[in-house]
């Protein structure tokens, strides 16, 4: 064995596990932000590997908009009970009830933007000093400059112009009182890497990712699921389609794609030939050209 033999997935996995362990070692109260989406599932899986045979030494944290697909919540609860993980839930509904945020109105009303307040409140309440997020640099141009260890000021905000340089594999997690970090172990993964890894490792994911029949309607080119949380307008016709979701977020803003992909291999094929980024179906990014960067500065995931 004279040659370095790692595949790209091995390399990414080794790096992700390394980051997980750095977080556990450098911080006092980390959490793993868990949405039930594929990225957070992969992150959870890397944490299982990082601390085996021990338990994951930090809780999961889910910011629940109250507008999740029921399948997501069921998946989350099943996973938590199977692996005896600790789960912290931050509720957007509670933030609304307590007057911390105001519910949006109108047909495009979404709780997506409100999550930021709930997230920051929940992190503060639990004195979290490092929140592991599933963000990837390939997702969106503002994320391309994100560090693995991303420093947040005492208001939880990101200053893209004042980031710490990050060299080699040395991660500087030092901070002053009240400040915190967001840590992104999947920084170097692409959507394709995530799918390939899920396939290789045979990781369970919510069935929303696979093609299924569902009642949907089309809004400005995006297929939205018919749920109690979306204000469908009269002219928006409800149709039954075979669809799947490329990302799983709030039901109000996560669009479905028309797809026949029923297996992992089908999905990988589909992703390989996709002509749209996965966030192309996210309503929230379409609000303005720098929508993502604006939200990140405020403390979004």
């Amino acid at each position, binding site marked *: 064995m004279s040659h370095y033999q790692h595949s790209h997935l091995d390399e990414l996995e080794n790096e992700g596990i390394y980051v997980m362990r750095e977080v556990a070692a450098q911080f006092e109260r980390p959490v793993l932000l868990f949405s039930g989406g594929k990225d957070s599932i992969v992150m959870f*899986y890397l944490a299982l590997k990082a601390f085996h*045979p*021990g338990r994951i030494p930090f809780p999961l944290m889910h910011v629940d908009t109250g507008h999740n697909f029921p399948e997501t919540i069921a998946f989350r609860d099943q996973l938590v009970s199977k692996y005896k993980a600790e789960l912290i839930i931050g509720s957007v509904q509670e933030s609304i009830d307590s007057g911390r945020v105001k519910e949006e109105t109108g047909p495009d009303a979404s709780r997506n933007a409100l999550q930021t307040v709930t997230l920051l409140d929940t992190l503060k309440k639990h004195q979290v000093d490092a929140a592991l997020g599933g963000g990837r640099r390939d997702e969106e141009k503002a994320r391309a400059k994100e560090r693995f260890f991303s420093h947040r000021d005492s208001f939880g905000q990101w200053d893209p112009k004042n980031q710490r340089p990050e060299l*080699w594999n040395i991660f500087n997690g030092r901070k002053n009182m009240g400040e915190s970090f967001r840590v992104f172990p999947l920084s170097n993964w692409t959507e394709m890497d995530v799918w390939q890894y899920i396939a290789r490792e*045979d990781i369970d994911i919510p069935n929303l990712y696979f093609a299924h029949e569902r009642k949907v309607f089309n809004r400005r080119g995006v297929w939205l699921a018919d749920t109690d949380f979306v204000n469908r307008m009269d002219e928006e016709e409800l149709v039954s389609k075979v669809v799947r979701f490329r990302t799983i977020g709030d039901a109000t803003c996560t669009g479905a794609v028309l797809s026949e992909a029923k297996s992992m291999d089908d999905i990988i094929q589909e992703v390989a030939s996709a002509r749209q980024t996965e966030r192309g179906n996210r309503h929230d990014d379409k609000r303005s050209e720098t929508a993502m960067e604006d939200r990140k500065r405020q403390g979004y995931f």
Partner: protein
Amino acid sequence: MGDKNRTNTASDYEKMDMLRFTTAGSVDDGKSTLIGRLLYDSKSIFEDQMEAIEKTSRSSGEEEVNLALLTDGLKAEREQKITIDVAYRYFATPRRKFIIADTPGHTQYTRNMVTGASTADLAIILVDASKGLLTQSRRHAFISTLLRIPHLVVAVNKMDLVEYDEQAFNAIKEEFRNFAKKLDVGEVTFIPISALKGDNVVDKSENMSWYQGSTLLYHLEQVEVDRGYNAIDFRLPVQYVIRPHQDFRGFSGRIASGRIKPGDEVMVLPSKTTTKVKDIVTRDHNLSQAQYGDSVTLTMEDEVDISRGDMIVRRNNVPTQSQHIDAYLCWMNEEALELGKNYLLQHTSQVVSMQVETIHYRMNVDTLSQEDTPRLALNEIGRVQITTSKALFIDPYKINKITGSFIVIDPASNVTVGAGIIRKQAEAQLTKQTVSPNVVWEPWNIPREQREARNGHPAKVLWFTGPSGSGKTTIAQALEQKLWAASKQTILLDGDQVRHGLCGDLGFSPEERTENIRRVGHLAKLFYEHGNIVLCSFVSPYAKDRDAVKALFSEADFVELYVQSSIETRLQRDPKGLYAKAKSGEITGIHGYDLAFEEPSSPDFVLNTDENNPQELVQKVFEGIFG
């Protein structure tokens, strides 16, 4: 989840590997366009991304779609049309996944280039064919070499502007080769391209039939990925200890270099305990061996005490353990590096206190010349000597990138302010450990700068060296009187002050003289930190001892004065009767008489007391230093 056996997905992606490369170029070299081109022609750009940049190109009134917009992410960049930070981009071909660290090329951003280069397997240096090799290209080449990126590609861009002329390409190639002679460059590949038109980026150019080599993308796909890893020397910095119950104790980390298998004998640093590896545990199954790059958990045959910051190695192949490090340091902060200031140093899984003792020189990254400097400012690279509060387990960066690199952190702001590349353990200038074990530096309660401000003058150390009877103390005393009269805070140290108390246990053997001077050096340092002008009058016959003292201070604050006089004068003066005793054979070992006195090679002042009277010399020194 993952509890079943892995599915048999014999898909091609299982065989893919990964290449990390960095691109560096000036604002106008067309770097962003090149990356845009790579992404576009390799079909890694999605429709919605393309639509977004088409829209932006149109709204800023550009005719063609500006591929550079794909990489220039942040708002400010789009406004100023420049790239301001390292941005990471991803694309893949069926053979390989690529990570691009896109770094800006402006003068002020050496820091970003170093950051991008730190993880790269390959560097693309962009040269504008119409402009030739600019300062910046040289800088990129130097930094790539300093960070030991295994493969260099010089992409001669904008060939369309020079009518695809072979001579233009060859001239740049020749020029680069000449420059590279000064560098320790590995493999260099030259490729003529036009990022704007697409020549030789992904598809072979029809405009340059004279070029027989690979296209850029083909080269990126074919080049061997060896990561510059070291497959020989086993090093596992311990990151985390897993202890779910009494019966399991696992030591986790990412193998920095070398290989390991169960049954191998290992040694733990710093305790030097030896044991054998029992198992290499992963969640999937125990491994029969593991190698560099693997994140693993080891269990040991014996119950050994190992914690984060320790390093697991082989008994017969250990890194250097040292508190004194000779390193290149790239400074990354607006606040310049301060000599003698306490910083934190993060190396593998350890964080320790450190001080920079000496800046040997600053590297002029454009001319590759070495320049004297009292400080390192943002984006400057210097060779320094560092002392740490605790021994580190180091290897030269050349041999091991992971155990050979570190970052410097400002303890006040917690910001990463420097990146270090270890050359080797520093020559032991000091005979004993300068820091006792378990002593952590605390910054001075009242910093020297505040004391200096109140005193109204800077602190200094004036070191008078010369054989006995040369007139050191006479001059030092007169000078101190003069300084005192001018309301300066002073103290004069000479043999009489220290030999009776602090160094009362020492004789005059070479070792004891060395120790005597070492103690005096640190005593002077304390007075110096207290804001004093410290005058030290000591024979100090050995150059290495004087240099060790000198290394404790910044160059500007340490003044070496060589006091000279002929042997005849000294025998005649003989203030302590030493020469008389030596003559009579009562004693031996007088430096400058029967033993050598090592003259300073470049003292700040040479004071000859044969030719000048003390008052003149005092005046000369006073004006020279304080005038």
